[in-house]
C-alpha cells in the first residue's frame, strides 16, 4: 500500500481563554510505502502526532488530502473510512490503550469483532506468545501495567495483519528489553510488507528506521532515507 499526503495543513482553535488558531501543520507532503519503517520525531507539541492521526484517518486535515493507493480517504463516508481503519490500519495509541472491562485476549480480538473477517484466534495466540502476554491472556486489561498495555496495543494493532501500522510513542515508559521487543516486532511487520510509522522521542528507534523525518516549524524535514 502507498499512502500519499499532499499539502496537509492543520490548525486548531486555541483552548478556553485563548484567541485565534494555532497552526500545527503547514502544507506538508509525505509518501509512505509498504515494507519500510518511518520514524517521525520532534519536540513535544510540534505536530507529529497530529500528522500521524491525519495519516491514520482519525483526524481530518484543515486542507490537503491523504490517499491510500490513490483513494482520498477523507472523501469516504464515515462508515467506509471506519472499515478502512479496521481492515488496513493498525494503531498503537500513546494513552487509552485498552478497554478495561475486556480481557487481554478480548482486547486483542476487538478489530476482528468490528470487521467482517472471521476471528483469527491463531494469529491472536501467536501475538500473545510473541509479546509475552500468555499468562495475562485472560486477565482484565484494567489491571495491567503500562508496559503490558503497550504490548497489548501492539498485538491488537497487528492482529488483522494491516497494511500500515501507526505507533505513537510505542516505547515510552518501557524497560529496555520490552522496548526492544516492541521495536523488533514493528520491524518484523515492515519486513512482512506493512508500512510502519513511529512517532517517538527515542533516539535508538531512529537508528534502525528506513526513513527518519523531523517535525520542525509545522513542516517535515527528511533526515534519512
Amino acid at each position, binding site marked *: 500500500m502507498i499512502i500519499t499526503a499532499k499539502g496537509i495543513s492543520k490548525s*486548531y482553535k486555541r483552548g478556553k481563554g485563548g484567541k485565534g488558531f*494555532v497552526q*500545527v501543520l503547514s502544507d506538508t507532503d509525505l509518501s509512505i510505502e509498504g515494507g519500510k519503517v518511518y520514524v517521525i520525531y520532534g519536540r*513535544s*507539541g510540534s*505536530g507529529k*502526532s*497530529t500528522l500521524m*492521526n491525519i495519516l*491514520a484517518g*482519525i*483526524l481530518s486535515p484543515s486542507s490537503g488530502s491523504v490517499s491510500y493507493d490513490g483513494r482520498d480517504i477523507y472523501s469516504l463516508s*464515515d*462508515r467506509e473510512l*471506519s*472499515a478502512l*481503519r*479496521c*481492515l488496513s490500519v493498525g*494503531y498503537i*495509541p*500513546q*494513552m*487509552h*490503550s*485498552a*478497554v*478495561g*472491562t*475486556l480481557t487481554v485476549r*478480548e482486547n486483542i*480480538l*476487538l*478489530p*476482528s*469483532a*468490528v*470487521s467482517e473477517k472471521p*476471528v483469527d484466534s491463531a494469529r491472536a495466540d501467536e501475538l500473545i506468545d510473541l509479546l509475552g502476554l500468555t499468562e495475562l491472556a485472560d486477565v*482484565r486489561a484494567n489491571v495491567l501495567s503500562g508496559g503490558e498495555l503497550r504490548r497489548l496495543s501492539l498485538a*491488537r494493532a497487528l492482529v488483522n495483519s494491516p497494511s500500515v501500522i501507526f505507533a*505513537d510513542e510505542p516505547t515510552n515508559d518501557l524497560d529496555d528489553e520490552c522496548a526492544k521487543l516492541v521495536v523488533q516486532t514493528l520491524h518484523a511487520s515492515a519486513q512482512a510488507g506493512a508500512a510502519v510509522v513511529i512517532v517517538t522521542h527515542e533516539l535508538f528507534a531512529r537508528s534502525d528506521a528506513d526513513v527518519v523525518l523531523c517535525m520542525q516549524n509545522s513542516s517535515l524535514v527528511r533526515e534519512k532515507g
Partner: protein
Amino acid sequence: MSIKKLLLKSITGRPLRSLALLFICAIMSGAVYGGAVVWASLDNGISSLEKRLGADIIVVPKSAGEKTKLEEMLLQGTVGYFYMDKSVSDELDKIDGVEKQSSQYFLVSASSECCSAKVQIIGFDEDTDISVKPWLQNSYSKRLGQNEIIVGSKLTTKVGQIFKLYGVECKAVGKLESTGTGVDTAVYASSDTVKGLIRAAQSKGISVLSKQSPDDVISSVYIKVREGYDIDEVTAKINLDIDGVQAVRTRSMITGTADKLSVLSAGITILIAAVCILSAVIMLVVFTALANERKGEFALLRVIGFSRARLARQVLGEAFVICVIGALAGIAAASAAVFPFGALIEKKADLPMLSPGILSVTGYALIAFSAVCVTGPLASAYSAYRLSRIDTGRILREGDS
C-alpha cells in the same frame, strides 16, 4: 468476540455503575406499573361496588345507625345485622316511583363456626332480587335450595364442602367472583335458609331477634326507581313517609369512598410523574458523566474501526439493555409487592380493591416497560451523539498536539 458480547461485557464489567442504573430503571418502572395497578385496582373496586349494589336506594332500619354502618358492611366487610318490620315492604309499594324492591336478611355466623372468623350471612329473595342474582350467574345459575350457600371469593370454603352454621348443615354450591369489596367475605343464601338459621340461632339461645318471628322481619330493602323519577326525591319521600327507616341513595353511600379514591389517584399520578422526571434527570446526568469518563475507551473503539453510527448504537444499546433488565425487575418487584399485599393496601387505604384483569395488567406492564426503555436511551442519546463526534486523536494523546 461479537459486538453483542462487547456490549454485555461493558455492562457486567462495571457492576456498581450498572446496578445503580438498573436500580433507577427498576424504581421508575415499578412506580409506573405499581402505581397504575394500585390505582386501577381501587378504581375497579369502586366500579364493582357501584355495580354490585345494583339498586338506586337501600332502606335499612333507623336503628341500624348512620349510613356508614351499611357502607362499612359493604366496603370493608364489617359484619353486622339489624332488622325492621316486614310491613316496611308494603309501605314502600305505596311510594310513587318505586319500580322494584327486594328484601334481604342479614345474619352473622358464630365465631369459628365455619370459617376462621365471623362471616356475614346475607339472605335474598330470589324472585325479586335485583342486586345479588346477577353476580351469582357465573358461579351458580340454578335456584338455591334450602341450606345451599354461595360463598364469597375470599373465604377458604370450597364448592361442595358441607359446614355447620348455628348447628345447621349447609352446603357450599358455588363461589362468587372477586368484587374487591366487603361482600367477598360474605356468604349468600335464600331468604328461607337465613330465616331457618335465625331460628336455629334462637333455639341455641342466641338472641338474634327479641320477640319477633323471622318471618315478620327483614334487614334491608333494595329499591330500583322507576325511570323518569328523581332518585333523591324518592329517597326523601321514603324517609318522610315511613317511620323507623332510613333510605340511603346508593351513590351517596360510595361518594366518600369515591372522593378518597380521587385524592389517592391524584397522589399516585403526582408520585409517578415525580419519579419519572427524577429518574429521567438522573439517567441524563449519569449517562453524561459516564460519557466523559469513557471518552478514552470510545476513542479507542473509533480507531479500531467503529463508525460513528456503530459507536452511537453501542451507547444506546448499553442503555437499552440496562433499561430492559431494570424495567423487568421493577415490574416483577412491583407485582410481588402489589398483588400479595393487596389486602394490606386495601386496609391501609380503607378502599375496596379489585385487581384488574390479566390484559389490563399486561397493558400497564407494557406502558411501564416502554416508558423506561424509551427514557433510558433518550437520556443517553445526547451522550451517544457527543461520543460519536469526539476528537479521537486528541483524546488518545491527551492534549499533546
